[in-house]
């Protein structure tokens, strides 16, 4: 019984931690935009994600970390790649995203129809913990 109680407690902790991370990201993005350091306003949201990218810690129906760029025009592929590369090259951030249940990184703009998505696990550098990819 205790196991189930702990799992409920963990679920709420994870949920608040996920919300906190998204909120911090949005706050920093907004501050950078207002201070004229960033040319586009970025906004992170939680999406469903890609079921093909799931791993052992994936959250049900909430595995996507979506970054939306409020650019006002369709972004070129290299612009979306440069945004996603910053996240993917930050291994600490990728690991945190994975541990909090995200499995997909999605980047898209607010006016175009194209976007890109990445399997976070491939960029985590975690070896032997999840195991099933070996």
């Amino acid at each position, binding site marked *: 019984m*205790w196991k189930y109680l*702990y799992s409920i407690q963990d679920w709420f902790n994870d949920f608040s*931690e996920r919300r906190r*991370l998204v909120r*911090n*990201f949005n*706050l*920093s*993005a907004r*501050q*950078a935009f207002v201070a004229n*350091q*960033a*040319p586009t306003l*970025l906004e992170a949201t939680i999406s469903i994600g890609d079921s093909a990218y799931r791993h052992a*810690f994936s959250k049900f129906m909430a595995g996507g970390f979506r970054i939306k760029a409020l650019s006002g025009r369709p972004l070129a592929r290299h612009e979306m790649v*440069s*945004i996603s*590369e*910053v*996240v993917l*090259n*930050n291994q*600490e*951030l990728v*690991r*945190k995203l*994975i*541990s*909090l249940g995200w499995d997909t990184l999605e980047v898209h703009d607010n006016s175009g129809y194209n976007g890109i998505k990445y399997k976070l696990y491939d960029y985590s550098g*975690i070896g*032997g*913990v999840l195991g099933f990819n070996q």
Partner: protein
Amino acid sequence: MKILITNQWLILSIIEFAVIVYLFVQLRKTKRINPSDLEILKARKSDINMDDVMRDMHAAPALYKALSRACHPDRFAGNPLEPVANELFQEVQQNEHNFKQLEFLKTKIQEQLHIKIKA
């Protein structure tokens, strides 16, 4: 007789309470973390500064461009500083998206290659 029955229930309830306390203490002592999950759990507790991430996203590309131009090995061809420039150029390339590291490299390049970088 009545007193005896009351005592029996009292003793039973004390034993039950002791068992509950024992189980609770054992539960608190029990490790809920598997050693294999430590890496993931450490990552969960790590604190990430999103301002740094934003700087990596927006300020790092310009600085990277300036540094990679400044210490490009072609600029130092035939110069005794060429191997140093080569090494620094590789370091800059490795830290393309790391603003903090690029700022550190900027001072290093200015000191070692004796050049001024406007970025």
